[in-house]
């Protein structure tokens, strides 16, 4: 049973508190330093460390009795020269990276006081590395070296400290715990002034670091598998493995532990190992090694062997080897408890395994990886890129070293372009927070300065729009091998189809598909697709209202892209550019869609929307994508001259709603505003005339244009809460879309013009401007008023007067819907309206209770509506989009 460490005495606590005080002060003072300051200090430290590389290596050898002097000196040089080379040009103070195109800046913030644990295997090199990292990032460090290496570490710290302070670093920037103990570490790990624990060492220290509750970098043990694949360059591979495994007597935790060799090359590889100074163990020797260098109780390596020479290990365990033997190579037959040498061995004993196939080799490598090496390092020698890829995918290792030595390769910067380090992050597999080679960025708090960006906007409309009386004649310029006219029986009966036919170039094969005059069902669309296929059509002419044109849009989509999943394409989205589902790209040789509208409301001839009814599932879906927009729109008033009065009124108000909602939308732009405002002006001027004098050609023509122009606006700016309410109400009570909008519209204007309970987030609007934009509309219409509030009020009144003139019921109650029935429907109405995507561009984010309130206002009726919340008395002159 482990003995519980003795608690710290007062004197020891006072000593540790002194270290903390010094470090805390140094860290605070360090925040004043510039990049030039730290770069000057770091250079001085690197030079000092380099100058003492051999001296420190000797101290480490003398104290720890581990490793090889020359190799430790090289490690000290890597920790200074290579690490300095890596950090020298890297900004680490203040702004360190800028991404102007994204409006992002990264600012480096020091962490403060770090408590750093260093290992016995790489003592001075780890200290040199961490000192340079700390100063580069303006942090102070208290070092808690391994108790068996603290004196050489203290000397390394002294050398770095003097170089740093002499170059201007704050006093106390590094301190070292003298004669460190586990209770010292525990005390410091839990100290409130310690901001980060950086533990490089054994599993115990790493676990303690992570258990402290502090932010920690804990990096630990490995068990590196090596796959020596049959296509490898064998001479290079064997030299690399021997170089790596014997480097500092195998003390680097990334060094090779078990080499899995393809059967075809096994004998040749073993021969080369022997030739280059390795002793190949027979079965008896392997068994001897397994029970002597590995503790049978714990299944882990015995400390007495760590960092020792192969010859010394052989001598101690009674194994006869040639003088100068570099490495003991022990063939093993498996991995796991029955095969003691398959675990980590930080000394020059290398297990080898003969694999009959690539699959077996990979499986054994995975077994080794999982036998204590998760997240650390794996090595492969191969010229087969596919096998390298496979190996990389199945190994759980932060570093996959290819065709180079594991230990020196993992250190980075020597055999590859990885970041130089002496701390190997092992990811979650190793219980660590990172798989990185720990580097200066782990010693920084990175602050991101994010500037407000403007979302890219657009104004997308069909390529060609022909308007005014007889615009249909423009069909003559569109040659076609086969044309399908999609319409409804009524329009066919009225002779509109014949008008269209006469404008199609002579000789063009033309078929007519009359579909029901209702929102299109899936089966109607699919029938249309069959017809298109049957006649191999290259042109669709959609002649009708919104339903016919919507049907034609979806027919085109399914005709060109039969694989398109309509239900998936109808998935709701917040931002069309970031939507999950992508529509099929428009095809260069795709079918041409020409839309001729026969109502003056929906504007479907130019919009990217289409509504579809799925009767089987009892639902209605809305498709939205610019690929749905017709290629050509024809806005010819001859097709609306005979439109019934009620339809004229309802579709006209639908058009007005489109324009008003696009005008105050959070996606409104100068491009959409110009269209929205013009449409509003045309509606107020011409809708009463078109309603009262249906044969007035100018009024019909202007209303037809208004519907198209409003659609250009809302195709790009979208609609708002009025549509959400109307969709829910219309569907529930079977009320037409335009009429449903009309019942809601005045109340929605008042609602949007009052200060929102919740604002809608929009990077493109810097202020809430809906009330001011309504006031602009009032000015445009010449409604008078001195203040924004008066102007909004006048707009509401003008809208109500327009509705009255069009003989549109004043309330839902007036339409004969009993109050009790409306009340019963309210929970569903509110839910459906809230789920409707239309309001997502509304200037106010509607709360559910606000939707309920609006429904009730519409139920009770217009007439008393006033812009209650529009309190800004200033005259409106302009507003800001950006």
């Amino acid at each position, binding site marked *: 049973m482990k003995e519980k460490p003795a608690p710290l005495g007062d004197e020891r606590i006072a000593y540790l508190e002194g270290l903390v005080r010094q470090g*805390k*002060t*140094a*860290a*605070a*003072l360090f*925040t*004043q330093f510039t990049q030039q300051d730290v770069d000057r200090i770091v250079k001085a430290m690197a030079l000092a460390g380099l100058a003492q590389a051999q001296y420190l290596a000797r101290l480490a050898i003398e104290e720890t009795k581990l490793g090889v002097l020359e190799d430790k000196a090289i490690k000290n040089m890597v920790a200074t020269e290579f690490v300095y080379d890596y950090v020298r040009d890297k900004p680490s103070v203040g702004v360190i990276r800028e991404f102007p195109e994204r409006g992002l800046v990264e600012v480096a913030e020091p962490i*403060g006081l770090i408590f750093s644990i260093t290992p016995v295997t790489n003592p001075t090199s780890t200290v040199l590395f961490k000192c340079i990292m700390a100063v580069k990032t303006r942090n102070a460090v208290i070092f808690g070296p391994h108790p068996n290496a603290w004196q050489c570490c203290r000397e390394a710290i002294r050398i770095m400290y003097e170089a740093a302070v002499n170059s201007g670093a*704050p*006093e*106390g920037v590094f301190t070292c715990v003298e004669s460190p103990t586990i209770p010292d570490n525990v005390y410091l790990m839990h100290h409130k002034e310690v901001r980060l624990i950086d533990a490089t060492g054994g599993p115990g220290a790493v676990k303690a670091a992570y258990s402290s509750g502090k932010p920690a970098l804990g990096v630990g043990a490995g068990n590196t598998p090596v796959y020596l694949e049959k296509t490898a360059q064998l001479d290079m591979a064997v030299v690399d493995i021997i170089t790596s495994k014997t480097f500092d007597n195998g003390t680097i935790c990334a060094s090779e532990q078990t080499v899995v060799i393809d059967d075809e090359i096994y004998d040749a590889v073993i021969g080369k190992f022997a030739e280059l100074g390795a002793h190949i163990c027979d079965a008896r020797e392997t068994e001897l090694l397994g029970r002597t260098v590995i503790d049978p109780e714990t299944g882990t390596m015995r400390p007495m062997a760590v960092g020792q020479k192969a010859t010394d290990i052989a001598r101690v365990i009674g194994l006869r080897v040639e003088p100068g033997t570099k490495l003991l190579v022990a063939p093993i037959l498996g991995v796991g408890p029955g095969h003691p040498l398959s675990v980590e061995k930080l000394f020059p004993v290398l297990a080898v395994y003969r694999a009959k196939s690539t699959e077996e080799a990979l499986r054994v490598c995975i077994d080794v990886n999982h036998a204590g090496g998760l997240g650390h390092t794996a090595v492969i020698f191969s010229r087969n890129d596919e096998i390298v890829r496979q190996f990389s995918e199945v190994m759980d290792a932060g570093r996959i070293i290819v065709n180079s030595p594991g230990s020196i390769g993992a250190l980075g910067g020597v055999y590859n372009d990885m970041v130089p380090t002496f701390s190997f992050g092992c990811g979650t597999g190793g219980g660590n927070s990172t798989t990185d080679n720990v580097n200066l960025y782990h010693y920084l708090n990175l602050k991101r300065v994010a500037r407000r960006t403007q979302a890219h906007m657009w104004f997308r409309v069909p390529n060609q729009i022909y308007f005014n009386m007889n615009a249909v004649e423009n069909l003559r310029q569109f040659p076609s091998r086969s044309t399908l006219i999609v319409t409804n029986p009524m329009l066919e009966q009225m002779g509109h189809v014949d008008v269209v036919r006469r404008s199609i170039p002579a000789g063009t094969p033309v078929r007519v598909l009359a579909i029901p005059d209702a929102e299109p069902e899936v089966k109607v669309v699919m029938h249309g697709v069959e017809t298109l296929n049957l006649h191999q059509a290259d042109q669709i002419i959609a002649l009708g209202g919104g339903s016919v044109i919507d049907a034609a849009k979806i027919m085109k989509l399914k005709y060109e892209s039969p694989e398109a999943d309509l239900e998936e394409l109808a998935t709701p989205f917040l931002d069309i550019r970031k939507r999950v589902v992508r529509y099929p790209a428009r095809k260069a040789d795709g079918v041409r869609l020409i839309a001729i509208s026969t109502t003056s409301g929906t504007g479907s001839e130019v919009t990217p929307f289409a509504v579809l009814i799925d009767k089987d599932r009892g639902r209605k879906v809305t498709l939205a994508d610019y690929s749905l927009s017709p290629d050509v729109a024809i806005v010819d008033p001859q097709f609306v001259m005979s439109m019934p009065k009620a339809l004229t009124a309802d579709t006209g108000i639908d058009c007005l709603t489109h324009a008003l909602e696009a005008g105050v939308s959070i996606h409104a732009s100068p491009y959409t505003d110009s269209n929205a405002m013009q449409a509003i002006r045309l509606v107020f001027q011409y809708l009463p005339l078109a309603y009262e004098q249906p044969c007035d050609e100018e009024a019909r023509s202007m209303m037809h244009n208004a519907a198209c122009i409003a659609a250009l606006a809302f195709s790009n700016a979208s609609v708002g809460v009025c549509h959400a309410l109307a969709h829910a109400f219309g569907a529930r009570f079977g009320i037409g879309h335009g009429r449903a909008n009309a019942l809601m519209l005045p109340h929605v204007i008042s609602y949007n013009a009052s200060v929102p309970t919740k604002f809608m987030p929009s990077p493109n609007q810097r202020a809430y401007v809906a009330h001011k934009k309504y006031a602009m509309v009032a000015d445009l219409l010449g409604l008078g008023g001195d203040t924004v509030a008066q102007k909004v009020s006048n707009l509401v009144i003008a809208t109500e007067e327009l509705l009255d003139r069009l003989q549109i019921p004043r309330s839902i109650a007036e339409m004969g819907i009993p109050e009790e029935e409306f009340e019963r429907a309210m929970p569903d109405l509110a839910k459906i309206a809230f789920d409707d995507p239309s309001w997502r561009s509304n200037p106010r984010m509607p709360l559910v209770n606000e939707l309920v309130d609006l429904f009730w206002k519409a139920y009770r009726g217009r007439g008393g509506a006033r812009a209650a919340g529009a309190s800004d008395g200033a005259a409106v002159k302009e507003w800001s989009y950006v």
Partner: protein
Amino acid sequence: MTTNAAWIQVDPQRMQAFRDEAIARLTRAAGEVVLDFSSVKRIDTNGVRALEELAGLADEKSINLVLRAVNMDVYRVLKLLKLAQRFTILT
């Protein structure tokens, strides 16, 4: 800040002299002592020690120690070391 307060210009080049002068003034003063930091661009360990000492002395004598014209870098150091709360700081 009272107009008759003792006023000491902090000279970062002569930290020891500043400390001695400040202690002498604090020992004699009553009410308020103002340390003018307008020449101080950066503070070091000696400066921190001196301020800790002066704060202790001011506490003992119930003197309000005012640091005037402290730049943001120095102010941040005082905040990190929890020293700022021991003074009245005018930036």
